[in-house]
């Protein structure tokens, strides 16, 4: 028993964190918004690729770092804290290992950081970064298929988090490269995406808490720092509790996936519920603690809050995953309920 991030995983996360610390502030996130200088984002991602970011889960034989899902928690949390506008879960946790397993020729570009990957899981639903990613993994029938951007039709959508580059995607039924097939393989992929997203959310939550703490220590009203009011203290303490309880749940889910543990599905869903709820609480509380100062796009807070709302709903929202936990616990749904609701990884709540 040792419940802490492994040395090798921590080393990678730290290396990534160092790159991000110097280069990924609010301006870099804004570069991903419409009209922003997206080349800056691409350059950052290439630098992260040099550190090994998209290679994390790729086997060493395929020029990867050969880490497993346990590494996702610290890595994605670090990334989430900085918030670069890239499909990180999709590229690192889903795309790269799938491409490696299928021997797809596009892997090299992904490892070099010159191609981003996104995932279109729910037919017809908005796909993040579909407007920008070079590669799109599409769930088609029972399988997951890889398309180049040019092979699919995309219809861009305005989004709350402008850096998400949303679009609806239509892929030709016949095309693409088959990456994985069958419910079990698909579910494993889905779980990696969920896990990585949960870890991103913990990082986002931590960043918003930091912003709020810094603000209320500085901002004075009624002659005292706003952070000396007990209502503010308690609200932020509750955020800290939520984040500190979500983080181990994410770490445990990563371990369970890597270990092929039978509890991996429920641990993954639990991680997503706790991380989503913690990040949403952080967003709302940070906004409230900033007052009108935070309620403008000139302040960076919204960059993180909007991302948190988007990711909380992505890869299965809290209600979806809570329902999965309930079923795993043997809480039989009222008769008929189970049949009416498809709770495969495809359900869009």
């Amino acid at each position, binding site marked *: 028993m040792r419940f802490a991030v492994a040395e090798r995983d921590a080393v990678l996360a730290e290396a990534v964190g160092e790159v991000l610390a110097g280069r990924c502030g609010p301006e870099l996130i804004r570069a991903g918004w419409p009209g922003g200088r997206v080349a800056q984002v691409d350059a950052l991602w290439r630098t992260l690729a040099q550190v090994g970011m998209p290679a994390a889960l790729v086997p060493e034989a395929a020029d990867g770092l050969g880490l497993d899902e346990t590494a996702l928690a610290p890595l994605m949390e670090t990334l989430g804290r900085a918030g670069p506008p890239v499909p990180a879960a999709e590229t690192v946790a889903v795309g790269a290992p799938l491409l490696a397993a299928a021997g797809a020729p596009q892997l090299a570009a992904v490892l070099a950081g010159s191609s981003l990957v996104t995932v279109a899981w729910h037919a017809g*639903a908005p796909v993040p970064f579909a407007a920008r990613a070079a590669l799109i993994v599409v769930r088609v029938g029972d399988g997951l298929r890889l398309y180049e951007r040019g092979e699919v039709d995309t219809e861009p959508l305005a989004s709350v988090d402008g850096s998400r580059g949303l679009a609806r995607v239509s892929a030709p039924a016949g095309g693409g490269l088959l990456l994985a097939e069958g419910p079990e393989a698909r579910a494993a992929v889905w779980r990696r995406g969920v896990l990585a997203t949960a870890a991103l959310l913990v990082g986002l939550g931590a960043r918003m808490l930091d912003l709020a703490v810094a603000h209320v220590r500085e901002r004075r009203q009624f002659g005292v720092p706003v952070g000396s*009011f007990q209502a503010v203290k308690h609200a932020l303490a509750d955020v800290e509790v939520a984040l500190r309880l979500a983080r181990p749940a994410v770490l445990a889910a990563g371990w369970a996936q890597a270990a092929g543990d039978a509890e991996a599905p429920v641990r993954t869903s639990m991680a997503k519920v706790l991380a989503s709820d913690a990040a949403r609480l952080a967003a*709302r509380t940070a906004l*409230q603690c900033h007052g009108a100062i935070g*309620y403008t796009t000139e302040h960076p807070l919204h960059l993180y809050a909007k991302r948190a709302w988007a990711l909380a709903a992505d890869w299965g929202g809290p*209600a*979806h995953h809570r329902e999965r936990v309930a079923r795993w616990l043997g809480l039989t749904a009222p008769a008929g309920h189970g049949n009416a609701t498809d709770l495969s990884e495809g359900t869009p709540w």
Partner: protein
Amino acid sequence: MDLTWSPEEEEFRAQARAWLAAHVPREPLPSGDTRAGFAAHLAWERELFEGRWAVVSWPAEYGGRDASLWQWLIFEEEYYRAGAPSRVTQNGIFLLAPAVFEFGTPEQRRRILPRMAAARELWAQGWSEPDAGSDLAALRSRAARDAAAGGWRLTGQKTWTTRGAFCTHLFGLFRTGPRAERHRGLTYFLVPLDAPGVTVRGFERLDGDEGFAEVFLDDVFVPDADVLGGVGQGWSVAMATTGSERGLTLRSPGRYLQAARRLLELARNRPGGPGAHRDRVAESWMAAEAYRLFTLEQVTSIVEGRQVGAESSLAKLSWSELDIRLHETAMELLGPEAEADGPWSRGFLFSLAGPIYAGTNEIQRNIVAERLLGLPRR
């Protein structure tokens, strides 16, 4: 105890409903927080005024219908039910006008109110300053007497001024006494935004373009005729009437009832989701309905001449919390569609401002605890 409307009230409702059905734009207007959208909203405001529905509760001489509070509630219900545009004139009508009615001179009333009703003059509020948000009494912007010119010279900065970039006038508090006096020594001024020395910079709210503005005032001359309620009386004037911002008038229940109806529609069209959603939808509807009943109780009290004071803080806590819950529920129902820009996501972002503006909810809870429950101020 009678929860039915009189035939006259039903007749008023039918009239309002018919007019709205005939006039409300089929397509939703673009956001009133952009320059183009604001213009479209202005056209709507003028149409409302032509139909004499802009300020139903005002006296006819200023463009109203002398409607009772009950009729006003009915109008609001119908207004929201019809999906009519949000009111870009609301800060003038709901924040400034009550002060003008109560503290204005007859000349000020004649000069200000009809043009406000007709949306010829558009009023922005100038309460907050960079260092005076929750702590409104910390205002620094000052007004210096210019006796020779028969007026005042205003200098300072206002911020978070809703739609300030599109308005023609500003109302706000300025310091005419020393800062140490806090809420004493403030005066309520009315300032044309095209006056020399005024600079307005619009900036983006979380939910819309240029929804906010900063207003810089550099030695701006304002004549004595544009002092409202007397020199040094600013705090009393503002407090006596911001009750209407925090209380009944701005936040009619019709707004939330309509949102709850839209939520129900959304939920009915998404059957089979996890059971928990149904529960939250029901909770949201109950919260909106409870707020409506609370309002009916408050209106009865007002109509029967009882005092309604810190109760407005209960109202603010209720509507702001329920609005967030309602929109959060909608976002959950929408699942992956929630992050696309649309009426629900915009409504969600706007709802998050509810616990911040018009007195943060932290301050409202202090008020409830201290004034309604009698807990010590410390």
